[in-house]
């Protein structure tokens, strides 16, 4: 059976060059980078080369890169680290209501621990209004965290504008760039950010490794305590294999960015056009233009997401959904809720995220299979007759 992987926003396969390098590294190099003997120094060399590669991807300098166990930990470190370091200055944090759970739940944790958090709304495309940010800033605001692009609907936020506002008010600004780095240009200077989160496994590197960019001179307190690795900011013996893979993945992502951007965008546009043509009563979620090149997110009226996923899976197609049933959390997507979708359209959402694994035939295969699936599920849906929704574009 044809296998079509359309869940690149969830995770990506290892790039073959990343795979080879990791295997080569793993075979010969095992030292602890903190050891001063030759085994340790050899490992250190690889780690520092990877740090340079990651820095290059976002136009930072290597001293500004701190490796973590992934995007989640980097988000935690950025937010908890800033909150703790600036506690004396204030206790107010601004974020959006469509952040990844790594940001959202960390902010909620802080709310329970003496901080105040403003969760900004978004418009129906998932866009944060910079003016809302400006209005939310108070004298005791210490941090603003707004994601670069949303992982579910792909909307790209106006980071430059927001960071300018943050700077004017001398508030630290963090952005979660897990979904954008390697997909669209990410330049920490141009974006004007103080902190930026990266994750390796979204760019064809291994899972369980990420990084926080921290502008030189900015003070954070650690979240994980111990041996003082990563310049005392993140303790724990370094995940050397992961770091080496992440470095290579970052290098390749930077190298191929433009080409992959254009290629996946072309495929994505073909997919979106095809679905809107072939399936009635469907809407495209997210911003029509300001969106990630590889993201497509639809809501199909009357059908439930997990049922679509299972049906697609039986045809070899991997996708995801914002339906509660498709997640372990058993809560419908907070992102689709925030853009104002009614529950049945949240449950009827389907996200397809393209990547290196895909070609035109994949798209055509989906366009062949998906309409039948939606039809079948609609055929026994009790909602199908109840509430017709307008087919959106």
């Amino acid at each position, binding site marked *: 059976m044809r296998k079509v992987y359309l869940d690149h926003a969830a995770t990506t396969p290892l790039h073959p060059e990343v795979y080879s390098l990791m295997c080569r590294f793993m075979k010969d190099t095992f030292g602890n980078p903190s050891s001063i003997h030759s085994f340790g120094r050899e490992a250190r060399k690889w780690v520092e080369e990877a740090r340079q590669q990651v820095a290059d991807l976002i136009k930072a300098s290597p001293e500004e890169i701190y490796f973590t166990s992934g995007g989640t930990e980097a988000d935690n470190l950025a937010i908890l680290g800033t909150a703790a370091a600036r506690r004396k200055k204030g206790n107010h944090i601004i974020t959006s209501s469509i952040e990844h759970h790594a940001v959202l739940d960390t902010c909620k944790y802080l709310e329970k621990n003496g901080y105040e958090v403003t969760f900004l709304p978004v418009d129906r495309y998932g866009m944060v209004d910079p003016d809302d940010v400006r209005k939310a800033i108070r004298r005791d605001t210490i941090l603003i965290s707004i994601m670069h692009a949303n992982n579910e609907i792909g909307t790209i936020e106006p980071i430059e504008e927001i960071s300018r506002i943050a700077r004017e008010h001398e508030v630290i600004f963090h952005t979660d760039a897990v979904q954008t780095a390697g997909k669209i240009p990410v330049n920490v200077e141009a974006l004007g950010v103080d902190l930026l989160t990266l994750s390796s496994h979204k760019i064809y590197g291994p899972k369980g490794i990420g990084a926080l960019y921290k502008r030189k001179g900015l003070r954070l307190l650690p979240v994980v305590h111990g041996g003082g690795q990563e310049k005392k900011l993140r303790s724990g013996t370094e995940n050397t294999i992961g770091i080496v893979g992440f470095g290579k993945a970052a290098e390749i992502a930077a190298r191929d960015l433009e080409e992959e951007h254009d290629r996946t965008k072309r495929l994505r546009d073909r997919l979106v056009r095809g679905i809107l043509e072939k399936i009635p009563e469907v809407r495209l979620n997210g911003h029509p233009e300001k969106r990630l090149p590889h993201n497509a997110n639809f809501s199909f009226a009357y059908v439930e997401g997990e049922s679509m996923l299972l049906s697609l899976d039986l045809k070899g197609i991997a996708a995801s959904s914002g339906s509660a*049933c498709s997640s372990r959390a058993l809560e419908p997507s907070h992102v689709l809720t925030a853009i104002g979708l009614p529950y049945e359209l949240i449950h009827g959402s389907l996200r397809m995220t393209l990547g290196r694994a895909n070609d035109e035939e994949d798209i055509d295969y989906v366009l062949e299979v998906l309409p039948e699936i939606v039809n079948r599920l609609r055929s*026994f849906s009790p909602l199908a007759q109840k509430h017709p929704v307008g087919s959106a574009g």
Partner: protein
Amino acid sequence: MYNETVMEHFTNPRNVGEIPDASGVGEVGNVVCGDILRVYIKVKDGVLDDVKYMTFGCGAAVASGSMMTELAKGKTVEEGLKLSNNDVAKALGGLPAQKKHCSNLAADALHKAIEDWKQKASAAAGRA
């Protein structure tokens, strides 16, 4: 995630659809949690002569609806009332833990359909 029996019922759900002249109809669930299950029954001489269902729901909802109709069909109304969500899950060979709570409601919907039939029947008896 799901076992083979569940997947088989998901792929080929039995008895989907409406019964236009149903003796009773029952619906459970709501769009917030994302699972809705509607059951139609045709009662003849105290027996569930036909049982059909429609669902907006996840794999577990589709499969448990299907399995419920198979278990219920041909049973007496009283037996139908004794059929539990748990019986359905068991007949399916088990469901993932997080699915048991909200997606395994087919027996509840059946009970509602039977209640609906009873009410209609007693109303008809009243009228008679």
